[in-house]
């Protein structure tokens, strides 16, 4: 596992090695201050895995997720996504990766305001160059699958939190991603709705073999996953069984 070479086995979807992230802040008092948030994080996640990431607030979970999602670039270290070295890709290529390979689900839903659920779900396809009619057809199909077939014309502010998160999940799925990254997807939801959302993830993982990485603070949410990664102060302190 200590190899610096990319893992060429078809099994590996995410492979990071010695990932570091340092934020530079200008606090206005003593000039630029560097604060390291991730220290040498190495991880391998195979296709079809369902991984939960836990850790205290500020331990660097979101920072890691942003790096895995190609929303941010590491200060140092390597990242191979689906066998491809993405740590050094230019922003345009990263946008392509986000569009084609990754689906995001956020704690705050992050839907586009004043836009119908259907249009929200169809938007990634717009950037993928899919025609409007086809985009809408696929978006509607996904809304149906997540049980929102009747809410296609609703705007986010007309939907409940659980419904909004389903719209977000539909959006994440619309371009057939290999990986879903969910940063505290149930953080804003009650226990029952959380269970429903987790059931959706669980089914996607089981039936479609989509790799899922999710961040949570709650043990019963993490229990849906098959593997647990625990971070502490920017370091991986546990990687293995869920009951840790």
């Amino acid at each position: 596992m200590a190899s610096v070479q990319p893992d060429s086995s078809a099994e590996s979807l995410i492979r990071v090695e010695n990932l570091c992230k340092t934020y530079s802040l200008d606090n206005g008092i003593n000039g630029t201050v560097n604060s390291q948030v991730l220290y040498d994080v190495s991880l391998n996640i195979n296709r079809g895995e369902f991984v939960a990431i836990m850790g205290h607030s500020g331990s660097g979970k979101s920072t890691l997720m942003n790096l895995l999602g190609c929303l941010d670039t590491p200060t140092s270290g390597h990242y191979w996504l689906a066998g491809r070295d993405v740590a050094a890709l230019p922003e345009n290529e990263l946008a392509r990766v986000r569009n084609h390979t990754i689906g995001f689900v956020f704690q705050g839903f992050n839907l586009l305001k004043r836009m119908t659920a259907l249009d929200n779900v169809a938007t990634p396809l717009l950037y993928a160059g899919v025609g409007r009619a086809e985009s809408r057809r696929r978006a509607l199909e996904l809304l149906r699958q997540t049980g929102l077939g009747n809410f296609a014309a609703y705007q986010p502010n007309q939907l409940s939190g659980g419904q909004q998160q389903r719209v977000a999940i539909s959006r994440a799925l619309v371009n057939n991603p290999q990986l879903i990254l969910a940063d505290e997807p149930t953080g804003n939801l009650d226990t029952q709705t959380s269970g429903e959302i987790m059931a959706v993830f669980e089914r996607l993982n089981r039936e479609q073999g989509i790799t899922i990485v999710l961040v949570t603070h709650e043990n019963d949410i993490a229990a849906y996953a098959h593997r647990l990664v625990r971070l502490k102060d920017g370091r991986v302190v546990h990687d293995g069984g869920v009951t840790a």
Partner: protein
Amino acid sequence: MNLLAIIGEALRALRLNRLRTGLTMLGMIIGVAAVVLMLSIGQGAQTTVNQAIASMGSNLFIVLPGATSSGAMRQSSGSAQTLTLGDAQAVTNLPSIKAVAPIITGTAQLNYGANNWSTVVTGVTPDYFKVRNWSTEDGEVFSDTDFRSAARVVVLGQVTAKNLFGDEDPTGKTIRIKKSPFLVTGVLAAKGQSLDGRDQDDSVFIPLTTGQRQIFGSQFPGTIRFMMVQGKSVEVMDEAESEINQLLRQRHRLAEGTDSDFTVRNMAALAAVATGAAKVMSLMLGAIASVSLLVGGIGIMNIMLVSVTERTREIGIRMAIGANRRAILTQFLLEALVICILGGLVGVALGIGGAWAVSRAADMAVVITLGMVGLAFLFASAVGIFFGFYPARKAAALRPVEALRYE
């Protein structure tokens, strides 16, 4: 990336903020309308001047009595009575001169039946119409015989004919000038405005002899108001000018070194000045209008910058789901461009409407050309791209994580 889809996104964003979009567009509308209006007024002025110059006749001098001194104001030209019919006849025989038209003028009351009209009565020789290149629309101008015999005949300008006769045909009828009967021999073709803005069609012409003896009385017998002198060609105009000066000084017995008691003006030079002035005016109008277009453009930039800040999170979301920098840049640029193009269309319509209203209300000639409309439109689009680019680039340069984190 699908351009059509991105246009759709841009239009949607603009629709969501109708009031703001409308107000921003208003800046553009006013700018473009002002440009179209100002250009059309400027162009109209140029056209008017060009027509006036064309209606003047070619290779013309005007010889006025009285001196023009470049130093102190002496006697303004035209106020003295130093030019005579004899002077005019003498000038005719100069080698570089083609024709001479001595002129006397005065205002008089005209009557035809119950209609009366007060206008400028001009006494001329038959050559006048040749020098001015002015033909009749109906009937004939008076003849040399009429001139020599000081006959009571008159040629009417279009406007005067209309005012006295209405729809009736004036040729062969008799009108009264200062109560004396005059036979109308013809009506002149329309000539339009002169350089000094007078309507040349509101005029009547009688033989100079008749005017001197019967209408304007014996106030200054034998003198004329001024004369128009036509050179043989453009090339001999300088020679012609010195010939006239020499001859008239000699005839007026002016000693070497004294001021002339007449003034020779080359109309081509005057025309050049007028054309230049009209050009400068339309340039200035255009420049003033461009400033408002510029202000409109800055308005667009301002609003787009606010919009980028406000929609930072939206931009982050779009990037997270796969929008690349080009897509974001294109969307914001399109938003600015749509404002400009729609504003430009409305502005052009408003400018044309305004030009029409001005031409109606102020009785001014306005000219709208397709090129002018195209220019205003092109200018508007350029403003959109120019002022839309910076905010759009700012939006596209955002980093996805930071945009997503933005509160």
